[in-house]
């Protein structure tokens, strides 16, 4: 049977690297995606994910299994770290180049991807986080509420607002999706 995360954290704190790697293997991929989509930088996303796992070993780590699931806690930590970085470097995004490995449709897809990324980047901070968690990580509203420290109703309305804004911003791309996808 898999060990509970608090036990793995305790073992890692006692120097058992395997215990931390077990947590890392279970959670790092979605955390990395979330950090990358928030910061649009692979280097930043890598740093953030590492910091979040290493922070679990610190004596003042605030993870309390009675209050939050480890996934929720880690997403919250990634969110906080990403926001700190975004505020530090106000100049904005470092976009990852889109894949252009096939001709026209791929080029169009690249443009579309950039347009989607830019539209999401333009959303207000909280709406952006909620959209990323809800759409890309398929996270339930209750968990998003715990991460963003908002009421579920507030999460729901911000998600609706974010989607409404994107519908408007990306309206021009709608007819082309059939051709590209």
């Amino acid at each position, binding site marked *: 049977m898999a060990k509970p995360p608090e036990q793995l954290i305790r073992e890692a704190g006692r120097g058992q690297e395997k215990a931390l790697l077990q947590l890392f293997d279970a959670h790092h991929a979605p955390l990395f995606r979330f950090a990358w989509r928030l910061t649009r930088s692979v280097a930043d996303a890598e740093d953030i994910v*590492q910091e979040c796992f290493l922070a679990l070993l610190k004596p003042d780590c605030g993870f309390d299994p009675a209050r939050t699931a480890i996934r929720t806690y880690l997403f919250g930590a990634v969110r906080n770290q990403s926001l700190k970085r975004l505020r530090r470097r106000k100049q904005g995004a470092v976009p990852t180049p889109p894949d252009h490995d096939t001709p026209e449709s791929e080029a169009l897809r690249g443009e579309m991807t950039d347009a989607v990324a830019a539209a999401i980047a333009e959303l207000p901070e909280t709406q952006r986080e909620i959209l990323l968690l809800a*759409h890309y990580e398929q996270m339930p509203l209750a968990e998003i509420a715990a991460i963003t420290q908002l009421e579920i109703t507030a999460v729901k309305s911000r998600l609706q607002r974010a989607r409404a804004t994107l519908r408007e911003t990306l309206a021009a791309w709608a007819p082309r999706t059939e051709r590209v996808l």
Partner: protein
Amino acid sequence: MNDAELDKLLDTWHAPAPPRSLRNVLRERFPQADPHKLARPWRWALVILLGSVALAVALAQSSENRWDIPVVTFLNQLYENFLQGEDARRISSIVARIKRSDPRVYVDGRLAVPLEFGPAASMDVQIPGDGVYIISLYRYTQTRNAAGRPTGWVQAGHAHGNAIEFQAGSTPVRIECNEEIVDSDRPVFVRRQR
């Protein structure tokens, strides 16, 4: 554009896979445990030494202890210093928790100016019409100096759960945080800033 079309469009934005190096870098940064292990005789010696120290400390603290042995007094002092150091370290993490948990200050029941965080894990609260009070959660705060004179620090309340409550002069002050800051009750000391 309907929901399904928007979802399709959003799905075109793929995140890169985490680099393989991420795991290795985490391993490199993992704090390594001390590989030196004590051989069995040394381990026993250490156990006996620690047992003796614990016994000496217990004797020194016992009211029935009439052995005024310098080494026992010294060990007792060492133990006291250790406790004080531990508490000081704990305060740093409590104050860090307070900082993170959006503390709101209520003076006489009304929302007041936010807390100011000073050096050495101290916090200041402003009392309108009175002045600034420094707050300390350190259990060993001295209210009197060696000569028996007041230091200015007074025990004025306590911290519990997610709140700190105390009297600043005659004004009741409550600091509320959005998460638990102490796991057990802790005295609060305050000193009016000169």
